[in-house]
């Protein structure tokens, strides 16, 4: 699964993206976040409060309960501040 991080999520995790192979019980964005947090360190710090996290799956903004698959591009980031 292709993962991308932006804004302070990227800054705290320390990398802008990575390709990971989450276990079977990672079925939606919530469980992905829980799994990433178990990796500790920057992940724990970045994803501590999931209510602050926004997500795009395959470049479409969606909600944390969205089902995800191994072939998806999943991006985690803080609320956007465009314009």
């Amino acid at each position, binding site marked *: 699964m292709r993962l*991308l991080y*932006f*804004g*302070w999520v*990227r*800054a705290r995790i320390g990398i802008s993206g990575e390709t990971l192979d989450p276990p079977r019980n990672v079925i939606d964005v919530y469980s992905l976040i829980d799994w990433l947090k178990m990796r500790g360190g920057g992940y724990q710090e970045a994803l501590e409060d999931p209510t602050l996290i926004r997500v*795009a799956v395959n*470049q*479409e*903004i969606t909600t944390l309960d969205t089902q995800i698959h191994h072939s998806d591009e999943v*991006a985690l*980031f*803080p*609320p*956007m*501040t*465009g*314009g």
Partner: protein
Amino acid sequence: MIRVQEKDFDVGLELSRMTENHHEVGAQSVFVGLVRDMANTGKISSMTLEHYPGMTEKQLATIEEEAHKRWSLNDVLIIHRFGILQPGDRIVLVATTSPHRTASLESCQFIIDWLKTKAPFWKLESGPLGEVWVDSQEKDERAAIKWDTEDS
């Protein structure tokens, strides 16, 4: 038309292109967003705009399409910069043309409200306290949501 770019843009040139030889246009509404030197934390020295390449273009194209659906417009232009910007630098240009002023004024405001909360950019300010991520504003959320409810 939408453009996501690191370099600056020439406002006069971009606006002229939208109206020259388009004599059906009666109104052009424009918004230019710039880097202010004052942030909550004090005077800033620079602002870095991070974005999500690929998705940014998709989101901007969606906004453009939505504006055309809601209003009778001749043209829509959105240029959004990324990278390291200084105070006084232009960040974004939104311009809409239409035969009548109301469509043009409303759609321009709609697009800028939309960009604030739905364009995948993140702003990092360098100032007296070091580097600080710009928080999303609740009032920006409300401004964007207003257009959803007006639609329904």
